[in-house]
């Protein structure tokens, strides 16, 4: 098994762990943690393909990863801001209880 396949498998496993976390956990913040893991798995794929790809000097994969890190940080900030606001309004971060659209 080539090193690239190894990295891809690790990224795939990381992605599915993140997905499992996002789907099964009850606390909103842990869903966000799951999403962060999925994003990171994607970054790992990008850099693995860049490293073992045909033209590493073009830096495309790495640039994608750096931009994706920046965007993911922004997303995490806004996501957590939303979670805090929901908690302040509905006094719970339990996703199963947030099923009412009432304002």
């Amino acid at each position, binding site marked *: *098994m*080539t*090193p*690239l396949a*190894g990295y*891809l*498998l*690790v990224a*795939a*496993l*990381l*992605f*599915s*762990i993140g*997905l*499992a*976390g*996002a*789907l*099964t*956990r*009850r*606390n*909103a*913040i*842990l869903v966000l*943690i*799951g999403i*962060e*893991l999925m994003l*990171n798995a994607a*970054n*790992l794929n990008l*850099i693995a393909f860049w*490293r*073992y*790809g045909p033209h590493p*000097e073009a*830096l495309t994969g*790495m*640039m994608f*990863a*750096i*931009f994706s*890190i*920046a*965007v993911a*940080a*922004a997303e*995490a900030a*806004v996501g*957590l*801001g*939303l*979670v*805090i*606001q929901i908690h302040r*309004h509905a006094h719970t971060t*339990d*996703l199963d209880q947030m099923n009412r659209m009432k304002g």
Partner: protein
Amino acid sequence: MSLVFYAIAGLTLAGALAAVLLKNTVHCALALTVAFAGLALLFLELDAQFAGFAQILVYIGAVAVLVVFAILLTRGSETPKDGVYSRNWLAGLVIAAGVFAVLGWAVLESARALPHETAAPTVTVLQIGNALMSRYVLPLEIVALLLTAALIGAVIVAMHEKEGQK
């Protein structure tokens, strides 16, 4: 496949699993930090030095602390009374396992065509700087705009309403 790769991959996956399975939310956040650190080591293993340090700086330095602050602000550190997993947790698990099966199959099928061993590209920060300024200058400006918008948006969303609770 070097031993170092297995060790770091094991650390990352253990951190990720712990982040998803642990009961205490703050422990999950700390396990998430271990996963981020493992990923940064993986990036360094892939000779992407700048991405590895940026990952540490951004994720461990900022996002992990942000997650932990959010947990404390929403009183998440007390263990919830009615269980940690949502009601239909089995469905989630099955879907995740399905996704992994598909991805794993795809990777293993195409394993033969993947390049074996290529020379490690030496990437200096100068090249990244030049690339950022020449080819990726538009994405850079857009990300700068996005970060500012996210900064202001997050503050406005999480700000106390002056006129008290609705």
